[in-house]
């Protein structure tokens, strides 16, 4: 079996699990208490009105008919209307998803840019002062909740020092065509450099707060796999041939130590989509996690399905990307797959 065939198989598996996810959400929604029709109409509506809307929404149909309808909607991208915003759920998601993606992508950038080198340096100074210092930092960053760090950042850098704005994505004096919804891209495409910088200022604190927990994990996992790899014969041989030390470390050693780090990065990225909620609340960030959690609390079923499926699709596609990357980083994985069959 070629590696691409293996990837196709993995992707198929991902699609099957998405199907499973859709069934679970459907099942859960029928078990949960609370009538969506009642939620939509509010407490003042009469029993009769609720019954009428229920029939209109198809809630009185047999279960299998409801399921067929639900699946038809999912497959055609028609997620129905949000009871809360009274708009199409697909439209809502298209609006909120870019904000969250932008936030977590920048957060992941911080995780990679700080976490990996710190892990490498800790491994090189194993049991030295630097190693202990980074261990302390990692311990701190994993154990202190992100929203608390976020509030502290707001207090110190936003309120006291006034270096950064406290909430939102962009100061109100700028107006930008939301072409893609990614403000970093939109401002740059429109050539608004000032606005672009302003977007960065807004991003910095929440992204840093969000990246903390992942940074600690990435640092620790990079450290431990670097320690394993740097004792290998081939590393000693490369040093023995007098190759530059940075080259041996960052090219020859890190690539071998990168597989666990890459796997963790993929999982982190996908899980941040949902886990960014508290940071989004703290920074009033109009993102998907905030939208999704609000929907859950309001029993806004269509929105919950939309958000959950979006996160599911993100998980599957990120895992696919990681599989592709793993095969590129470590040919042994690729060769193993190709030889095993």
């Amino acid at each position, binding site marked *: 079996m070629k590696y691409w065939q293996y990837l196709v198989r993995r992707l198929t598996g991902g699609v099957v699990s998405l199907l499973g996810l859709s069934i679970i959400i459907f099942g859960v929604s029928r078990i949960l208490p609370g009538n969506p029709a009642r939620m939509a109409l509010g407490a003042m509506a009469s029993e009769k009105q609720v019954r009428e809307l229920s029939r209109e929404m198809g809630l009185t149909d047999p279960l299998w008919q409801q399921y067929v309808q639900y699946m038809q909607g999912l497959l055609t991208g028609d997620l129905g209307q949000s009871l809360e915003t009274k708009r199409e759920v697909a439209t809502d998601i298209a609006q909120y998803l870019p904000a969250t993606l932008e936030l977590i992508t920048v957060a992941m950038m911080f995780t990679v840019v700080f976490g990996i080198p710190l892990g490498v340096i800790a491994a090189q100074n194993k049991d030295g002062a630097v190693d202990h210092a980074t261990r302390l930092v990692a311990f701190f960053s994993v154990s202190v909740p992100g929203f608390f760090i976020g509030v502290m950042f707001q207090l110190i850098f936003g309120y006291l020092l006034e270096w950064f704005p406290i909430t939102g994505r962009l100061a109100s004096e700028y107006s930008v065509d939301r072409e893609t919804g990614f403000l970093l891209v939109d401002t740059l495409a429109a050539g608004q450099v000032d606005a672009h910088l302003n977007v960065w200022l807004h991003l910095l604190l929440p992204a840093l707060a969000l990246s903390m927990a992942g940074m600690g994990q990435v640092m620790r996992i990079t450290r431990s796999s670097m320690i394993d790899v740097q004792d*290998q*014969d*081939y*590393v*000693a*041989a*490369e*040093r*023995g*041939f*007098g*190759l*530059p*030390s*940075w*080259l041996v470390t960052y090219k*020859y050693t890190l*690539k*071998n130590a990168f597989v666990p780090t890459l796997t963790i990065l993929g999982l982190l990225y996908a899980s941040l989509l949902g886990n960014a909620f508290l940071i989004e609340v703290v920074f009033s960030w109009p993102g998907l996690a905030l939208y999704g959690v609000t929907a859950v609390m309001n029993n806004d079923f269509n929105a919950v399905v939309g958000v959950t499926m979006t996160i599911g699709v993100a998980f599957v596609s990120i895992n696919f990307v990681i599989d592709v990357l793993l095969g590129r*980083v*470590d*040919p*042994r994985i690729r*060769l193993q797959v190709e030889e095993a069959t």
Partner: protein
Amino acid sequence: MTLAEPIGDDPILSVRDLHVGFDSFDGFADVVDGVDLSVGRGEVVTVAGETGCGKSVTMKAILRLLSEPPAQIEGEITFDGTELRSLPKREFDRLKGRRMSLIFQDPMSSLNPTFTVGEQLADTAQFGGRSDTGVLEYVRRRYLGGERAEARERAVEMLREVQMPDPESVMESYPTQLSGGMRQRVLIAQALLNDPDLLIADEIGTALDVTIHDQIMTLLEDLIADHDLSVLMITHNLGVARQVSDRIYVMYGGRIVETAPTAALFDAPKHPYTQGLVASIPRLTGDPMAEGIDGSVPEYLDPPSGCRFHPRCPYAHEACREHRPETIPVGTDAGVECVLYDDRHDAPYDAPTLETTRAQMGTIADQSQTTASELGGD
């Protein structure tokens, strides 16, 4: 003379009174205890001994591959007139990779599994021994200006020289796709890419099966002659030592116990340990095979006093326990560290010959006979 003095007039490598110890939780392990050795220009020298006698540690100390601490290294190492121990790292790195090169013990684990052979060889050709290369210079020479293509050509040429079949496709392969013999050839090619003067080879070929091992040794002999290399080879295989080397050091318990030109060492070994080793080589004469030397290599945390071989030596007596024996010169190019050859000590025996020692050791054939008779008598 003493053996601390160089054997040739102008040795390319000389090591004097090298001590290497390791601090461990259980105490201080004195692994290399005053080793003197030298490699003349164009000479092939072997350090032979059992596993665990300090050969590899000696090699690593020479190449600065031990991290200090835990290792503690003392002594003088001179390469081509330059004292290496006091040499700044930057200058040492310049020697390493360009003028000194090494072949590691295990071809299976000494190539990086995540890069193609071509990538590793081309990097070694371009940047081996150039450890001061910065990131920008690396990017420039790696990706811009055609220098990379030349380096790859040189790598292919070198692969051809080590008789690698289909070198172009090997360049594109990952190490896991190659056989042990091919990987060993890649490692030899990598070591010779920058045309070194001194080659240090650690247990070359021992991880391979016998036929491949033989091919590799023959190849190595040819390469040594073609490239005019001086070689310090480390092996536990006396057959290998006999095949390629001009001179042999026998190491035991972190000390050099005997040195002699290859032929002399095999014809008339002096030290009881060397005699034991030589007597243990299987012969094709049909004589029973010697059983080997009783016991095993010493503990380094608490080594035997005096001569470290005395607990296993059939000729040991009081003097052996009391003092470390001095090195006694034998002729001009050999020496032995054993009191049996020291006139100032009154050894209770004459110095043994190889045959006496052979007779001392039990033979495996004997043993099987006894077992057979025991069974028969039952």
